[in-house]
């Protein structure tokens, strides 16, 4: 329960920061003020300023938007395609449909995701959209596997037999009985993939393949600051902490949510 609250608090901090940045940021993150560069944290600039004199707090707030957008859409692609594929594979277990779906997944798994992302950027040019597609594609087999594995065990339950006796078809049983019973796993996997998406976006931006300037991104902030690390450690520290705390918060929240969503555990009292 403590983990859940901490996880939610960190996640909320990150979401509120991102939402607030649409309305207000302490400074305009596009305005350069070179005379004021590399200032350590002060009251006027709580996180200090970067090598071009931009306010780091403002950049982190706007950068959170990029992270969220990329991670949400990527997880959405993964769930939207992976879960139905996994359900279909479990429903037709052992048949050629199952084989085609799962071997297709293996095929995608066989390629390192960053390599594919680099390939996509090489062909279409670097952009946040391409990063989303690259990360999203690699979420599909993850969700398909989790879904299929969990669904297979649910298919063995007597209540599925009861539903079949009631004349319900495969589709209907999958949606009505299987999906709610594996939802907790999918939520946990979703939050983990969400945090991995944030990491992947940061990694792609770090090597220059994600969101392009002037759109701020945590990964690029790290890349830009690495040569100045010895002179002004704060410009590396704050984006780094933002990534770590967000990923930690999402993982804790996912774990806590799983417990909370299960009526059996909920009744036992947390």
């Amino acid at each position, binding site marked *: 329960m403590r983990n859940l609250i901490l996880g939610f608090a960190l996640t909320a901090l990150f979401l509120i920061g991102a939402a607030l940045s649409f309305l207000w940021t302490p400074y305009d993150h596009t305005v350069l003020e070179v005379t004021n560069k590399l200032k350590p944290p002060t009251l006027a600039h709580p996180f200090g300023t970067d090598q071009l004199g931009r306010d780091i707090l403002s950049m982190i707030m706007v950068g959170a938007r990029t992270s969220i957008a990329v991670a949400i859409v990527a997880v959405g692609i993964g769930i939207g395609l992976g879960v139905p594929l996994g359900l279909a594979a479990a429903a037709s277990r052992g048949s050629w449909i199952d084989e085609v779906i799962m071997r297709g997944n293996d095929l995608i798994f066989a390629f390192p995701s960053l390599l594919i992302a680099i390939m996509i950027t090489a062909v279409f040019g670097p952009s946040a959209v391409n990063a989303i597609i690259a990360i999203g594609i690699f979420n599909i087999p993850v969700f398909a596997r989790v879904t299929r594995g969990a669904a297979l065990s649910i298919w063995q339950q007597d*209540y599925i*037999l*009861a539903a079949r006796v*009631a004349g*319900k078809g495969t589709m209907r049983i999958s949606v009505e009985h299987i999906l709610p*019973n594996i939802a907790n796993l999918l939520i946990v996997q979703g939050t983990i993939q969400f945090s991995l998406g944030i990491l992947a976006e940061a990694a792609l931006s770090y090597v220059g393949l994600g969101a392009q300037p002037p759109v701020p991104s945590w990964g690029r902030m790290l890349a830009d600051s690495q040569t100045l690390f010895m002179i002004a450690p704060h410009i590396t520290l704050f984006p780094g902490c933002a990534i770590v705390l967000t990923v930690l918060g999402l993982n804790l929240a996912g774990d806590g949510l799983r417990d909370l969503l299960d009526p059996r555990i909920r009744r036992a009292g947390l």
Partner: protein
Amino acid sequence: MSVLQIENLSLAIHGARILRHISLSIGPGEIHGLIGESGSGKSMTALAVMQLLPEGAEASGAVSLAGQSVVTLRDADMCTLRGATVGMVFQEPMTALNPLLNIGQQVAEVIALHDNLSRSKAFVRAAEVLERCELPRDQFPLTRYPHELSGGQRQRVVIAMAIAMKPKLLIADEPTTALDVTTQAEILKLIKRLADEDEMAVLLITHDLAVVTGLADDISIMRNGEIVEQGKGAMLHRTMTHPYTKALFSASGHQPERAQAGQDRALLSVENVTCSYALPRKTLLQVPERFIAVNDVSFELHQGESLGLVGESGCGKSTLTRAILGLEPLQSGTVRLDGAEMTGTADDLALRRKMQVVFQDPYSSFNPRHKVDRLIAEPFHLLGRTARMDEIDEALVSVGLSPTDKEKYIHEFSGGQRQRIAIARALIIRPELIILDEAVTALDVSIRAQILDLLADLSEQFSLSYLFISHDLSVVRRVTDRVLVMRAGRIVETGETEQVFTNPQNPYTRKLIAAVPQLSDA
């Protein structure tokens, strides 16, 4: 001197009282039956003897094993006692063995642990012990793995592990509950023989009075953590005084009042049905062989009749059930319901509403995410409409539950209540036939008696027919008009229930009936 002496044992776990003032003693070579329904504390008593109590447990009173008090023992000393002085056999032979070790290794491990023997000597001893447990070496070499053995053979391995060190006390916790009746009879005989040969005391824990009365020297009846009655095994049914004991005895032999068999109209007719599964391929290009689970089975079930189907596990009962329900493709033959043939297509929906099913396991037959109203309304899919509130209420009331229960989740109910809900689900669309697939097997005797009464009532009230599938012959005898005996995919005997039970024709039926433990024999 007694081997196990429990005096005034009380136990609380996190403040909840589990056991109250338990006293019993077992002498060498004696078998003591500890009987109770689930939650009565019989397994906790065994765990207290082994000092394997869960965290937060506080015990008071005295437990002594062969004159030595175990309550004051340190854990390290207790470890040498467990396995050497006390052996334990658990209910589920499928999970009590490590699937990665062969049977020789599992038994030798116990011996090597306590005797510091070399590997090869331990294996020689293991072979002897397995031989004593009727697993001769030429048929069951030590290199067999658990998955290559049947349930009864696995239970013999578990017993071999428990008696390998010639313990003074053997605790057997529901050792035969998961087994077929013929296997059960053999295992009980084995335990009896080992107790006699080794002068070993046995604490036999079970919920089944019939199992114990023929076997045990002494019997203790437990209820809510207390021993309500103790007595000599064979005499108990004559000397018993406590009302609970009497209730237990009458529930075990409970005979629901039923109207006699119905009309001649065939409601369900199964004609020459054969079902088979493809076995795994042995080589890449070979056509996989097929295992014939149901072999050319034909029978009829008449309107208003209660028909029993008995057989041991693996005989094809479940496959036949699923075939009748249209969940299993037929290799050949037809299933007719009320004269119309089931085709296995969507056209069957209209037919299927005449037939519903209740499964064995009250815990896995419900989607834990749905509330009761949604769970029991599921068969309305066959009618193509949703259930009205009053129909849900009525179904719940007819199985003895309250309409307010529909707002609850399934985990809020006990096993017996869940089985009532399962019956409500089967009943709600007013079918003519309900298939009861081991529907009372997992229930305690008193709950079972209530459910059997309920089924008898409902059958009259809604003119239902039942196909009663079970491996429990004594129950089938009491609730069915006619019975089918199934073995290895075939029906080997059919007839009026009393006829079959008093005068079985087929040798297999005779063997089956002879193996059933009888309360009246005691």
